[in-house]
């Protein structure tokens, strides 16, 4: 069995044979060694260069390709060398290599001879002598032609030399196409994390500049490459320079972002870096996924625009609103590093927030200082029952990151419990009532003695008590109870009754008889009942309004419970729930002191609150929410728990219970009813009289002849032009509300209105505007005279104002004259209508007289109201006579005077009292809620003329030019509306 031949082991053929082959082998290898090494080196270099150029593309594929090319080439060379080495270990293959191609016959003969020996150098045929066999083989090998072999070796060597030359040429060509690229490729191929390890400069003489954001109004500045810099956020940093190597994608890089360089059109490249955060900037060249960074970095620190700083005087602190009705004075100072845009007063309570603009600035003002007064009766305070955070917030002008707000420390206002001020007011009324109950007991208990001295002593004592109670009444009526006061109408009612009691007391002091004592008893009893009625009525209203206020809190309780059920909001929900619970608890305590309805509602609040809190404590938030909603629903209907809507109490007469008496009366008795009746009469009278004035104006307007108006319009064109020219020198825009320019601008505007009215044939409005313009000019002159800062300007302004006034005055006189003439003519035409109006006016005068008389008899209205009614009656009678005569102008003047007296009478009843308005507003909201939820009677069009009359007056008022005196106020009002 033939053993497998070991290919790695050299065959031992015997010395003769090996010598014969060794000579040829040496010759061959010596001839080829150098040319072949050169060819391999040239190939390696070329492959390397090409691989680097490929790697420079920077992509993962390119880099892998380059590495693969190098590795493959090396492997190929190694394989070739290994193969070569093996050839030289095998005599048969050596013969093929040396002579196989050039001398095939000799080579074949040598191979045949060689085949006589096996792998171990022994004769293949064991019967043959080994020595002879080896000798035969050696001779056969020696017979190979040495020259031919040497010639073949020389040819092969020449081929290697040529190949090496060609490869070298190719390498040089590759390098010369992008010499720096090979270096870049070398850097790139060893890159880690997208960055090449060796930095390279990319720009020649780079120039760095930084331009701060426009809103800072700062100059551009130069930076030095590599030097640290601090710049405002939003600055734009420019790098400009000539690229050292063309064709590279250059960019600015901070480790995160890149901004590419672009051609600046002047042979250089530029990149602009907007500074948003601190960064170390460097120039990089981008090769696919790999960048080669410039070794020089420029660290830049971004300076943020700081939030405004606001200082609120006295903050932080706490104040209790219930303890003082004094307003909260807000004084602040806001500063910013670059500029302020707005300053707000911000009020926050629970989930509510209200912002009020304190200042609007130009965005460049670095500091603002100002103040504000928050009254105890502020609507936000009234609506809030959780602690109120009062802060001042200022907004800067940063357009880069958006305006930023800076906030001051907070003044925390602790509002009273819901209903606490009202409870205080009720307590005061209760004290007053008790005093009068005691007074009633006193006069009931003490009959007039027979002896004059004793009688005098008693009346003195009673008078002293009376005076004391009078003082208590004054104090009760004038006190503010944590922001609420006794309503004006109630004050009027109580004063009217007190007046009657005064009279009874004076009568008894003058003549102490049984009759005067009985009258005093009666008056005291009435006073007691009126105060009692007022107190209970107030309690009823307060309970209702407090309940309505608590609706929001109960809703908040429900929202808190609902939030607590949502993941992520549980904590906030719990806090909201707790805050609402506290407020409701406070409200419950206060309601309990508000009479029958208040106690009833207080119990309802307490019961529902316990349910909600019990569920909340157990983590049963859905039921806590339902209980809160139940409470809110109850408070939305602040009726007695049992009984008819609107009554203060109820007594069951239900489905199966026995019928029984109704609830107690919460009214104020006969006196209050008389007061209400008289007040209603007065209200109706004032409204109807206002309507009568409107009728006269309408009659006069309708009586104006179109021909007269056309004639006036023709003449007026010239005068309108003159009016405009007269005020031409006045400024169009004022520089401040208290400057002469402002008044001058107002006068110009008014004069323009006058001119327009003249052109429209409306002399009445023209006269009014003209007179207002003259007033504005007078004011402008006064301001100009007292202004010291601009003496020259003021002196010049004085002359201009004088000139304008001199020109305007005759035009106003002319318009007034035209108006008089038009009215006279209209009066003549409207004679019949005016007489009819006169009769109506006379009737209204009669009504005023009767009302005044009745009120005096019953003591149902206070004295000032009665006096004003008397005045109104007299003026209305005079007006009626003037209308009869056809003197429309006088009649209208008198009618307006009469109307003013009627309004004065209404005011004496507290009709326009501020507190009334506040109370009405609060209750109006409550009633509004009712209206939304329940039924509301819709009055017929002719049922009540007040709104129509009011609309008419408003429309007329808006159509007329305003006086310069009120111009600023109107402007502020209009701004407020718009805001």
């Amino acid at each position, binding site marked *: 069995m033939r053993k497998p031949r070991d290919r790695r082991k050299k065959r031992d053929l015997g010395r003769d044979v090996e010598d014969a082959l060794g000579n040829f082998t040496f010759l061959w290898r010596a001839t080829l060694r150098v040319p072949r090494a050169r060819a391999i080196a040239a190939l390696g270099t070329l492959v390397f260069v090409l691989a680097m150029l490929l790697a420079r593309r920077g992509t993962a594929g390119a880099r892998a390709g380059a590495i693969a090319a190098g590795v493959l080439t090396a492997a190929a060379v190694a394989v070739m060398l290994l193969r070569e080495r093996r050839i030289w270990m095998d005599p048969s293959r050596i013969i093929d290599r040396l002579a196989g191609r050039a001398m095939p016959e000799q080579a074949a003969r040598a191979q045949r001879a060689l085949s006589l020996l096996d792998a171990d150098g022994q004769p293949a045929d064991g019967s043959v002598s080994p020595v002879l066999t080896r000798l035969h083989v050696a001779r056969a090998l020696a017979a190979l032609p040495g020259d031919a072999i040497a010639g073949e070796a020389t040819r092969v060597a020449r081929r290697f030399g040529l190949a090496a030359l060609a490869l070298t040429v190719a390498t040089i060509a590759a390098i010369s196409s992008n010499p720096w690229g090979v270096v870049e490729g070398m850097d790139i191929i060893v890159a880690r994390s997208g960055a090449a390890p060796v930095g390279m400069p990319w720009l020649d003489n780079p120039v760095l500049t930084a331009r701060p954001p426009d809103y800072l109004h700062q100059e551009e500045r130069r930076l030095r490459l590599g030097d640290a810099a601090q710049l405002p956020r939003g600055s734009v940093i420019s790098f400009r320079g000539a690229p050292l190597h063309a064709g590279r994608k250059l960019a600015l890089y901070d480790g995160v972002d890149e901004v590419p360089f672009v051609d600046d059109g002047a042979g250089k490249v530029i990149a602009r870096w907007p500074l948003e955060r601190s960064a170390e900037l460097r120039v990089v060249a981008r090769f696919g996924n790999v960048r080669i960074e410039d070794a020089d970095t420029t660290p830049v620190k971004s300076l943020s625009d700081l939030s405004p700083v606001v200082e609120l005087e006295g903050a932080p602190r706490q104040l209790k609103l219930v303890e003082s009705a004094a307003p909260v004075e807000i004084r602040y100072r806001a500063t910013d590093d670059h500029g302020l845009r707005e300053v707000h007063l911000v009020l926050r309570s629970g989930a509510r927030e209200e912002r009020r603009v304190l200042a609007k600035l130009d965005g460049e003002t670095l500091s603002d200082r100002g103040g504000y007064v928050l009254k105890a009766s502020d609507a936000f305070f009234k609506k809030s029952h959780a602690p109120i955070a009062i802060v001042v917030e200022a907004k800067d002008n940063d357009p880069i990151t958006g305006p930023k707000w800076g906030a001051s420390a907070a003044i925390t206002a602790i509002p009273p419990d819901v209903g606490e001020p009202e409870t205080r007011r009720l307590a005061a009324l209760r004290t007053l009532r*008790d005093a009068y*109950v*005691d007074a*009633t*007991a006193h006069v*009931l*208990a003490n009959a007039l003695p027979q002896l004059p001295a004793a009688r005098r002593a008693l009346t003195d004592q009673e008078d002293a008590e009376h005076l004391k109670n009078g003082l208590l009444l004054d104090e009760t009526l004038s006190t503010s109870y944590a922001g609420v006061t006794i309503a004006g109408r109630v004050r009027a009612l109580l004063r009217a009754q007190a007046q009657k009691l005064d009279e009874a007391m004076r009568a008894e002091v003058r003549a102490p008889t049984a009759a005067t004592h009985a009258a005093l008893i009666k008056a005291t*009893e009435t006073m*007691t*009942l009126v105060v*009692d009625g007022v107190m*209970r009525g107030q309690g009823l209203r307060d309970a209702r309004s407090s309940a309505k206020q608590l609706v929001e809190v109960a809703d908040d309780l429900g929202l808190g419970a609902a939030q607590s059920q949502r993941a992520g909001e549980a904590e906030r929900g719990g806090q909201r729930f707790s805050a609402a619970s506290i407020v409701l608890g406070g409200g419950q305590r206060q309601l309990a002191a508000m*009479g*029958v309805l208040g*106690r*009833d509602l207080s*119990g*309802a609040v*307490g*019961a529902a609150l*316990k*349910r*909600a809190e*019990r*569920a909340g404590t157990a983590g*049963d938030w859905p*039921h*806590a*929410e*339902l*209980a809160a*909603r*139940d409470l809110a*629903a*109850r408070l939305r*209907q602040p*009726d*007695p*728990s*049992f*009984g*008819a*809507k609107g009554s203060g*109490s*109820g*007594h*069951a*007469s*239900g*489905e*199966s*219970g*026995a*019928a*029984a*008496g109704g*609830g*107690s009366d919460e009214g104020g*008795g*006969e006196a209050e009813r008389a007061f209400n009746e008289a007040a209603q009469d007065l209200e109706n009278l004032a409204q109807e009289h206002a309507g009568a004035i409107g009728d006269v104006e309408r009659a006069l307007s309708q009586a104006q002849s179109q021909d007269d108006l056309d004639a006036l319009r023709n003449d007026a064109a010239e005068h309108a032009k003159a009016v405009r020219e007269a005020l031409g020198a006045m400024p169009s825009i004022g520089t401040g509300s208290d400057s002469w320019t402002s008044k001058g601008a107002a006068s110009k505007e008014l004069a323009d209105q006058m001119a327009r009215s003249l052109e429209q044939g409306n002399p009445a409005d023209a006269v009014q505007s003209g007179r207002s313009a003259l007033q504005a000019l007078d004011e402008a002159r006064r301001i100009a005279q007292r202004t010291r800062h601009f003496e020259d300007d003021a002196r010049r302004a004085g002359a201009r104002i004088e000139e304008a006034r001199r020109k305007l005055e005759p035009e106003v006189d002319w318009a007034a004259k035209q108006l008089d003439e038009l009215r006279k003519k209209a009066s003549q035409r409207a004679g019949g209508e005016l007489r009819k109006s006169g009769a109506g006016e006379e009737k209204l005068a009669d009504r005023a007289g009767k009302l005044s008389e009745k009120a005096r008899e019953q003591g149902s209205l206070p004295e000032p109201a009665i006096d004003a009614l008397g005045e109104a009656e007299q003026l209305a009678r005079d007006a009626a006579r003037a209308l009869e005569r056809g003197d429309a102008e006088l009649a209208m003047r008198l009618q307006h005077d009469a109307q003013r007296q009627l309004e004065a009478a209404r005011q004496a009843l507290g009709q326009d009292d501020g507190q009334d308005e506040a109370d009405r507003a609060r209750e109006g909201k409550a009633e509004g809620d009712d209206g939304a939820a329940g039924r509301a009677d819709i009055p017929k069009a002719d049922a009540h003329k007040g709104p129509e009359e009011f609309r008419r007056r408003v429309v007329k008022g808006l159509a007329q030019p305003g006086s310069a005196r009120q111009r600023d106020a109107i402007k502020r009002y209009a701004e407020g509306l718009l805001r």
Partner: protein
Amino acid sequence: MRHTAATAFALGALCTLLVAPSRGASPLSLLQAARAREMILGLDLEDARRTLEGQPSEAPEIPRERGRLALYEADCDAAASALAPLALAKDEEGSMLLDIARGCARVTAAVVEDRDDASGVVVRYQDEADRALTPLIVETIIKARTSLSRDLGVTWPAPMRVIVVRDLLSLSAMTGLPYESAQTTGTVAVAKWGRVTLLSPRASQHGYAWRDTLAHELTHLAVTRLTVDRAPLWLQEGLAKREEVRWRATGPFDDRPSADAVARRGIDKKLDLPLGNLGPSIAMLPSAEAASAAFAEVTSFVRFYATTAGDAALKQLLAELRGGKNVDDALKVASGSDLAGWDTKWRAEIMKRASEPVPGLDPPSVDPKALSALRDRVRLTELLFGREHFAEAQTELTQAARSPIVARDPSFAYLTARVTERAATAELARASVADPVRVAGSYGPWWAVRGRLAQSAGDAAVSEPSFIEAVGEDPFSIEASCRSLTPAAPALSPPASALCAAARAASEPDLGRN
């Protein structure tokens, strides 16, 4: 009777099958739903539950009955969940039930519950301060159940559920009775959805006859159970008025004013309504006066029927209605005459009575000014009393007493007793409230002052029943429940002591101090 009932049910079920919308419901399911409904209305809730078990919910009938069952079991959350899909499907009855379930869930969320398993009574309180009423409620229910079982032959499912609400708004939400109607007619309790919803006596300023009201409402539940809710309104209310006082001993104010007199007055004033046309509920009549006339009418009529035809005829009438007969047929079977016949007989009987003024409903005509002056005088008396000017209060009271208006007014009698006690003597005060006949109607404070004055005189025979009456009207009055006006109350039993504590916690101010 059983055969008739089965036929009626089968016919009803067939009709249901014929008219029921298909919507994927199997006829068997609809049949089961109809059966369950009958069971629920008859308060056989366990049977209804078993019937509904495993029924598919494709058709609205099954979830509707499931919701109804939950509502009857006072599980309002479950009822709302079951019924919510029906509202989306615009199922009218389902939406109505859902509204009530939601109202109920809101009102009863996190309320406290007192359970007396031995008596089979469960009471929930919207205001936990009312819990002191539990012993009295349980006692009333036990007595009323006994009385009703005796009179009508009813058996009672357990538990009996009562919910005490704090106000009319909650009563309305719990029952579906419109709030305006509840206010207008002064409804204080409703028996519906398998439970009694009772207004807390604290809701009314001086309470109301809440124990009688509870008995009244239990009668409604009994009649509903006996007739599977097929009893007409006149029978429901007439029986309830009859039974509301039969659970206890007769009181001095029972049938005062007489139902016959009020009914006669109603007929005279054309306030009477045909018995068969009283509308859905007396609580929904347009005024308290109309409700009062209707109550008197039905009370008088049922009393006349029971007296004339006998108690057995009453029970048979209920049984015939349960069997599915209409009212006329049922009346004919039970008593030989239909409704029109009975109405004619009753009216003839009523018209035999002489017309008479009804105190409370026919006040003597008074000059409004005099009435106003009287009111002022009474108020002054209260105020002077409140400031402890007792003699002066007596002066005012004396003047007020001259008015004939106050002659039989129990509240004025109460005021008189209080003032006289302090201004004169307790003996005189006791005399002023000695005789219930001298006042027109029952009034909690009147009973309370009567009891207290009698107690101080050692007259337990008067004081005990007076206090019981007082608590039956106004349990949260200190004078009634503590039997004293001072903090030093006499020794009371634990339940009475709890009620006294609840009354003190209510802290209603005493006379003239409000």
